[in-house]
């Protein structure tokens, strides 16, 4: 079984990257800025500040891999690139499975590479509800900068696979709006392995964009180090202490500014276990998740969905109602895992793998959950709202209708015990009856909002730039900051906010370096 090897073992590790093999005892290092996490937020802040002359250290819990380490061995990739092997769950009824990347580059290494600006209506809401006056205009140049850096572009036609063409065929037949996806890719080759580490190097994840840029401008990255706590002197953050995974060794970084960018699940837990309290009491609250369900459509014709780009199109017809649809090919093992079938029935179903289209939807949720810190570790709690469940059910009906219009013969639903759909009429009937949410199979990769930014310290955790209210030298630069869910893939918003935060730090360097 092929297993990805840390680049260190291949002798190709770039200067500035330190792994567990470099630690032979406890280590203390100094920097201007320590950034916790190397994903969309952390790597962006690190690169911008390093180029501006700050001495930056990034501490990352995951290991350092390179493109050559990403193989076709799906479960090996999941074990190595996903936190807890992908088995992370928000408690609720139904439980929501969520995935986070744990590697240098963070979740950008395993996401689909969808790159969309925050919708105008969301930014208007942030202005209104979080007091972020002028944020739409303010973010404009930062979006442009991020898009240039990570090469946001439409797909080359030859990289689009049959599953996506079928999705488009169905949308066109229904007369629904469908658009080419914008993705951070430089001539995506269509290997459809986005979620397991892009093996072609085409996806411009942080691993191949902001991370090398940060290193080039002098940043150092300590991989394999889990930050146990942020050190502090009163309300002032002074650095971090972490444990080198798989060793007894500790790493301490003393820094003038601490930036937490470890995601909406881990940032609140880290701040809590470090003893930071915020006047709003909202740290860890307001968790949004963009709950996601999928349907599997079986066609008569051969699809071979694993040949071609991941999510080349998005159906935007229902975006105003909080629903976005896309085709998302899954490898056989992951798909088989999602079916309730077993034995010969599983085999008969899986034998049709080459004729399947997997399509999913993103739902802009209205519910909010919470991240609690239990024994220092985060545990997410999230209860799908009735309104969101109804919206998802409607979405399943609409998406099924689209797939039948594209020629599907049978559709498998994400509800336990639900019969398969055999026609568009079945799909329409589905929308007429209420399916209890507790029987749903819900997943997500978009966690947001647990350290929301805003001007009111009684309601928000950080200020408009991510500086944590009522603390000193402590910032947040990840999706925790979002005051509300955004209804589109969050990576570009995280990067734009991180760029803006870096500009704020540079503009106030005297304050942060003294």
């Amino acid at each position, binding site marked *: 079984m092929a297993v990805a090897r840390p680049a260190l073992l291949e002798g190709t590790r770039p200067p500035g990257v330190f792994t567990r093999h470099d630690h032979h005892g406890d280590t203390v290092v100094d920097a*201007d800025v320590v950034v916790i996490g190397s994903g969309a937020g952390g790597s962006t802040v690190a690169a*911008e*500040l390093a*180029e*501006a*002359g*700050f*001495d930056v250290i990034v501490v990352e819990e995951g290991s350092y891999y390179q493109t050559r380490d990403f*193989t*076709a*061995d799906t*479960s090996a990739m*999941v*074990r190595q690139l996903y936190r*807890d*092997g992908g*088995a*992370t769950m928000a408690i609720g009824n139904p439980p929501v499975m969520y995935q986070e990347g744990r590697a240098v580059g963070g979740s950008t290494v395993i996401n689909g590479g969808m790159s969309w600006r925050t919708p105008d209506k969301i930014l208007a809401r942030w202005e209104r509800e979080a007091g972020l006056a002028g944020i739409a205009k303010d973010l404009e140049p930062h979006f442009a*900068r991020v898009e240039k*850096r990570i*090469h946001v572009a439409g797909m080359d036609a030859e*990289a689009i696979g049959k599953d996506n063409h079928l999705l488009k065929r169905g949308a066109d037949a229904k007369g629904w709006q469908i658009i080419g996806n914008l993705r951070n890719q430089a*001539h995506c*080759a269509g*290997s*459809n*392995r986005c979620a397991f580490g892009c*093996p*072609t190097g085409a996806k411009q994840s942080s691993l*191949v*964009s902001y991370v*090398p840029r940060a290193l080039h401008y002098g940043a150092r990255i300590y991989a394999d180090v889990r930050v146990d706590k942020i050190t502090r002197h009163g309300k002032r953050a002074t650095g971090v202490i972490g444990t080198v995974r798989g060793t007894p060794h500790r790493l301490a970084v003393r820094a003038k500014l601490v930036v937490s960018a470890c995601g909406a699940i881990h940032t609140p837990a880290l701040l809590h276990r470090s003893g930071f309290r915020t006047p709003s009491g909202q740290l860890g609250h307001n968790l949004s998740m963009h709950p996601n369900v999928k349907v599997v459509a079986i066609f008569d014709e051969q699809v071979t969905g*694993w*040949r071609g780009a991941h999510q080349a199109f998005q159906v935007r017809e229902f975006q105003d109602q909080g629903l976005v649809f896309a085709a998302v090919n899954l*490898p*056989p*093992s992951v*798909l*088989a*895992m*999602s*079916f*309730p079938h*077993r*034995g010969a029935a*599983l*085999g008969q179903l*899986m*034998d049709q*793998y*080459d004729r399947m289209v997997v399509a999913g939807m993103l739902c802009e949720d209205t519910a909010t959950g919470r991240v609690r810190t239990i024994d220092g570790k985060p545990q997410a709690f999230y209860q799908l709202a009735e309104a969101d469940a109804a919206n998802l059910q409607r979405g399943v009906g609409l998406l099924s209708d689209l797939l039948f219009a594209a020629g599907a013969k049978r559709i498998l639903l994400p509800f336990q015990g639900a019969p398969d759909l055999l026609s568009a009429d079945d799909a329409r009937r589905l929308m007429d009856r209420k399916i209890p949410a507790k029987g749903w199979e819900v997943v997500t990769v978009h966690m947001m909002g647990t350290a929301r930014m805003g001007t009111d310290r009684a309601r928000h955790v950080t200020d408009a730039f991510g500086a944590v209210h009522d603390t000193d030298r402590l910032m947040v630069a990840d999706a925790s900051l979002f005051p509300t869910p955004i209804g589109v893939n969050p990576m570009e918003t995280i990067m734009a906010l991180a*760029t803006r935060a*870096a*500009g704020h730090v*540079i*503009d106030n*360097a*005297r304050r942060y*370096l*003294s």
Partner: protein
Amino acid sequence: MSGYRHSATGRRVLESLVTVVCPPEAHGLASAIVDHMELTLAASPPMLGRAFATGLVAYDLGALPLHGRRAHKLSAERRERYFASWEHGPTPLHTQFSHAINQLMSLSCYEMPAMTERLGYHPAPWIDEVTRRRLTVYRDDVRRQEAQILAPDPLRPGVYVGKRRREVG
């Protein structure tokens, strides 16, 4: 990483369940499938591994009062019936555990090369082919992007904090 390892009993139970959960074509792969499940569980949170190990013991012993034998020693027909009784189990824990076994074993089953080959799923040669094509057809664009990643482009042109830091002292 939880460091999870199957116990001897756990392994016997799982190997006996391969014929219940996996398609007939995979029955000869029982040992490899169970090995793969161990790898998956070892990457999961420790609590999950402990719960799974406990569940396997409970599942094995739970057959005694019903069938007079431990689960891994049941005949094929009784094995099927016993697993189905957990799927529709008396408590949600029974249902959840059988569901977890089904999920994990199905995942491992369809990671076996013999099973993916059967489906015509062989991504490695495809990855090689499209990677080569990308680096041939779009070579210049790819190089331009790689250069752009490292090219100077300060967020605040003219401001270099390193110097300012020394001025601040």
